[in-house]
């Protein structure tokens, strides 16, 4: 169908083990935004988001692209590698930490040390590591209830996360948050939200703050980026679209990362979504939409570099859909009966840790012994975290009523026990208009 928009190079990605196929497909008039659409270069085999987008700085190029076939096929020399040895070891350590920690959580849950709702991240480690390891400490991460590994990748110590899960007072939220509500001001992990879609406007607000600081408060070096993680089920929620709109409208430094693991508890993504290709929804709002293989940490890292770079340079938001899979059920209470065992087997064969190991061996980046050393280190770290959490005390009863308000007594009374408004310093600096 030849229309004004037929110049879009829409690359469709089949949901299987094949890699990106750059096919020219005539688009329907309903695809894409009304902004001028750039023709993607034919070098779309290795194209990334920035290539087409940077071409025209003024208007938004609504490019929907599939990124990244596996570069490793063409790799022989070190110069083409996606990753250096140090980066490789760092990435490997992070994915293994995520996996071992979550497995330990499952053990602890079945032993009764952990309770309530626990949602594990096994299988999706590539997404967390791929994005978060590229962030600075001041960058913000907003997550959902499946947030243990996001917390670990962002730098929250394993001890603190495990203690929080055990409900001990040494946890990152002193035992008051729990599995679904991990917060860390120091590491800029601002949640941990149980309601799906709730984190998206919060992340958009954090990105808004970053822009506000730069433009209104004149902190010229404030280029903090926010990364919002959420799932496929969330993409049918109204708040998601509201924020895509406002983030693109105000060109906020945010990356929307969809961890599409195809299942929302027992609701298959294909059963609940009219158009299951989530990356397409980005261009509808004027931002690039990218689809990437979320079981491969190196591919995710490449896309993340572009998306985060875009946001840091002030070019606005990006929507990244990561096709991934959770090896366990939705939560530890989920019997996981609806998923097809064949599907599970197919994705288990694409285990991100195995894939990363294979890449690093094939390119002679590391030796077996080095990886084994890391495995051992992580095992010890997680066991130490469990011991620490076990030995930590439960919160004291007096902690029940603390922290409801930032104001200690909640009456507009400051820490010194007097009404804030009576303190002359409180009103200092108020302007006469």
């Amino acid at each position, binding site marked *: 169908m030849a229309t004004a928009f037929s110049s879009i190079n829409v690359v469709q990605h089949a949901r299987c083990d094949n890699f990106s196929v750059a096919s020219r497909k005539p688009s329907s008039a309903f695809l894409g935004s009304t902004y001028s659409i750039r023709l993607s270069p034919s070098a779309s085999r290795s194209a990334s988001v920035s290539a087409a987008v940077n071409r025209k700085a003024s208007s938004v190029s609504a490019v929907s692209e599939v990124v990244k076939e596996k570069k490793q096929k063409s790799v022989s020399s070190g110069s083409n590698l996606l990753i250096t040895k140090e980066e490789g070891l760092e990435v490997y350590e992070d994915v293994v930490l995520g996996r071992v920690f979550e497995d330990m959580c499952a053990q602890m849950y079945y032993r009764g040390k952990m309770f309530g709702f626990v949602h594990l991240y096994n299988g999706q480690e590539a997404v967390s590591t791929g994005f978060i390891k590229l962030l600075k400490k001041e960058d913000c991460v907003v997550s959902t209830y499946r947030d243990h590994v996001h917390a670990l990748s962002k730098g929250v110590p394993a001890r603190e996360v495990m203690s929080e899960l055990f409900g001990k007072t040494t946890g990152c939220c002193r035992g008051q948050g729990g599995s679904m509500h991990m917060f860390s001001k120091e590491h800029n992990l601002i949640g941990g939200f149980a309601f799906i879609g709730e984190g998206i406007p919060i992340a958009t607000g954090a*990105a808004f703050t970053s822009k506000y600081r730069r433009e209104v408060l004149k902190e010229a070096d404030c280029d903090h980026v926010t990364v919002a993680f959420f799932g496929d089920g969330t993409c049918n929620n109204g708040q998601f679209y509201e924020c895509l709109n406002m983030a693109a409208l105000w060109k906020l430094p945010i990356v929307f990362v969809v961890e599409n693991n195809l299942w929302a508890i027992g609701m298959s993504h294909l059963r609940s979504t009219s158009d299951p290709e989530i990356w397409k929804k980005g261009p509808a709002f004027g931002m690039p939409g990218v689809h990437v293989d979320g079981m491969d940490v190196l591919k995710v890292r490449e896309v993340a570099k572009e998306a985060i770079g875009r946001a840091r340079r002030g070019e606005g938001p990006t929507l990244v859909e990561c096709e991934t899979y959770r090896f366990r059920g939705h939560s530890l209470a989920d019997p996981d009966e609806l998923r097809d065992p064949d599907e599970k087997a197919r994705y288990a064969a694409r285990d991100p840790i195995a894939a990363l190991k294979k890449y690093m061996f094939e390119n002679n980046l590391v030796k077996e012994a080095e990886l084994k050393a890391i495995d051992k280190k992580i095992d010890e770290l997680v066991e130490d975290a469990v011991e620490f959490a076990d030995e930590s005390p439960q919160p004291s009863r007096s902690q029940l009523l603390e922290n409801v308000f930032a104001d200690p007594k909640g009456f507009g009374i400051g820490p010194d026990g007097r009404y804030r408004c009576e303190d002359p310093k409180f009103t200092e600096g108020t302007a006469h208009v």
Partner: protein
Amino acid sequence: MLSVFRRKVFHGSFIAAITVREALNSALDEEMSADPKVFLMGEEVGEYQGAYKISKGLLEKYGPERVLDTPITEAGFTGIGVGAAYYGLRPVVEFMTFNFSMQAIDHIINSAAKSNYMSAGQISVPIVFRGPNGAAAGVGAQHSQCYAAWYAACPGLKVLTPYSSEDARGLLKAAIRDPDPVIFLENELLYGESFPVSAEVLDSSFCLPIGKAKIEKEGKDVTITAFSKMVGLALKAAEILAKEGISAEIINLRSIRPLDRDTINASVRKTNRLVTVEEGFPQHGVGAEICTSVIEESFGYLDAPVERIAGADVPMPYAANLERSAVPQVEDIVRAAKRACYRAVPMAATA
């Protein structure tokens, strides 16, 4: 900018009369001027000068980056405000009416109110949610609900209900400076009402404490508690009661959460009779909480059952006469006060 409406010689220190609208506008202006982290966002707050003209002139003064016109997406922009507050700014989120806040209530309660607790004090949320609350004139069921009781039930929120211009100015300034989420419930019908204010109120450092009620009028026979618009009606009722020899003490609650239980109980211990007045639905309302508080702390002092005046237990009707019957009127307050004083008065006809 405060335009001094008229200079009258009032008793004591009153030097001017300003409307609630002017009070709110000036408070916002001064706070935005003092702290560059304060910004206003909401529907029509910018170019339209505010749906009820509360933010008039602010766009010209502070620019579109600090006075943001948002698309019509309460859940989205409330969440954005909360996220900005998490990360260090001090947003003021305006809801065109608090009825629309229901679309954003998840963010108000789950993201704003509970965050300081869930994060064990790491993430505080210095945000203010403001807008008109309660019934206006003939706007129908979906635009007339009072949300004081709903929000006041939730730990982690502070809920303020100003009545006069002094309340509006002082409480809004206190709310903006407060490090916690504050629900600031205004009233559309009060925006245009003018109140005398003293020089102290007009000063830019003026601020009222959160959590303290004000005794608008002292009395010795019956205590009448009210908030927002109902304070005006209670004061009129007090005048009528005075003519019949009943001296009513009128308490302007100002703060629904935290509720100033001390002032209420001290007053009841003095007068021994209580009438609570509110505009919202009766069940689980503010009056219910006040009644229980008084029974818990001052039961022995009560000489009569607590009288509760609330709006009718129906969605707000449209017809003018029905709307009048659905909202407390001065006569209802007078009748209730007399009943509390054991004057022979039949029960009011309820809807």
